[in-house]
């Protein structure tokens, strides 16, 4: 396997080539992330004007999501190990309108950097009190809120001594099919950012910084938990306000 220095050199070369032309989205063709090699489409995406079904998104309601699913620290008999924290923010569309009453899903490693997934072979301890999966619906203002513990960084086998910065996976729906987003939220100042080909696959530095949450002392609560704020901005909705399905 290549060493980090070789991967870092590839990252730097691509970022220099993309300077000033970087887009808001990751490059699909991004060789430093080795698993992309055979999985990235080679042809440019075909431009489509969204049709009726693509201008709408599925509905989710309270029958889909239980109240306790937003608190990842109360899903077992005991309290999970780690830094208890609240992660909250707003989901809005490209025009600044809230995405109300819509599904947000998260999954993450535990405080040791281990997923409760059969393919995760990282020799770090599982936590019997932590699954690492949460769901909630945004409120009328587009706000979501989860209680969890801070995930740890973890190794992966992209290259020798490859480590992912700590992150929470987010799955978000908009009001249109076209807005569907799965992404990852990171924590401020992570020393692994520069080394990570997944984070760096977004070659515009300002765009990838959109994935970093902000510590927010107003979300932190006394004697209980730290707090982070992370807002999610989707693209425009392609819907006119009065359109009916």
């Amino acid at each position: 396997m290549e060493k980090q220095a070789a991967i870092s050199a590839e990252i730097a070369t691509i970022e220099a080539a993309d300077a000033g032309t970087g887009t808001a989205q990751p490059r699909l063709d991004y060789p430093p992330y080795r698993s992309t090699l055979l999985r990235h489409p080679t042809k440019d995406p075909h431009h489509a004007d969204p049709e009726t079904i693509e201008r709408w998104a599925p509905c989710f309601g309270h029958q889909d999501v239980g109240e306790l699913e937003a608190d990842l620290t109360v899903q077992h008999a005991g309290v999970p190990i780690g830094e208890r924290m609240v992660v909250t923010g707003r989901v809005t569309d490209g025009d600044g309108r809230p995405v109300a009453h819509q599904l947000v899903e998260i999954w993450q490693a535990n405080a040791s950097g281990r997923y409760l997934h059969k393919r995760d072979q990282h020799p770090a301890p599982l936590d019997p009190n932590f699954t690492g999966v949460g769901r909630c619906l945004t409120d009328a203002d587009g706000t979501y809120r989860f209680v969890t513990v801070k995930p740890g960084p973890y190794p992966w086998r992209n290259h020798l001594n490859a480590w992912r910065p700590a992150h929470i996976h987010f799955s978000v729906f908009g009001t249109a099919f076209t807005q569907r987003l799965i992404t990852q939220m990171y924590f401020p100042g992570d020393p692994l950012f520069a080394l990570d080909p997944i984070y760096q696959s977004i070659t515009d530095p300002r765009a990838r910084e959109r994935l970093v949450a902000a510590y927010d002392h107003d979300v932190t609560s006394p004697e209980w938990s730290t707090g982070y704020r992370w807002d999610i901005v989707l693209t425009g909705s392609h819907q006119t306000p009065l359109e009916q399905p």
Partner: protein
Amino acid sequence: MTTPGQTVGPFFHYALPYPRGAELVPPGSPGAIRLHGHVVDGNGDPVPDALLELWQADPDGRVVRAGGSLRRDGWTFTGWGRAATDAAGHYSFATLPPGPTEPGRAPFFALTVFARGLTDRLCTRAYLPGDPAALAADPLLSGLPAERRATLIATPDDRGLVFDVRLQGARETVFLSFPGRR
């Protein structure tokens, strides 16, 4: 500024798939069809860690506004489902055929594809093969060369429709970009 996407990664199986997620209707129920296929990489090898989401109109062409996809009651057609590929790269949905959302239009399933090694989600359409006139008149399909057009049209089999997703290669599936977003 838009929030960028990131790969779904390898560890989504314990989080995103859920019981009956791929069963928009109970398999074998009256009118049910199977929409299934394989996801393959540039070598033609199966992609065993992909996730597909299906979003569609109902058989009358209506956009469904009913919740309940995550906890199906067995009676409500929600128009949405989620299926992970298995070790052979195979996915399968039980659903109903969508109708045209406007008279004369070619009905299709809207599909979203996620996978480890895919840095962002991909969108595509699986058109129903039944109405050649509507397919010929479709604005998206008619803008594509014939061999590329064929990648977007499902083919019938004994229980429904087959739609393969080829991430690379000579018969690479046509993936879509929408205004403002790949």
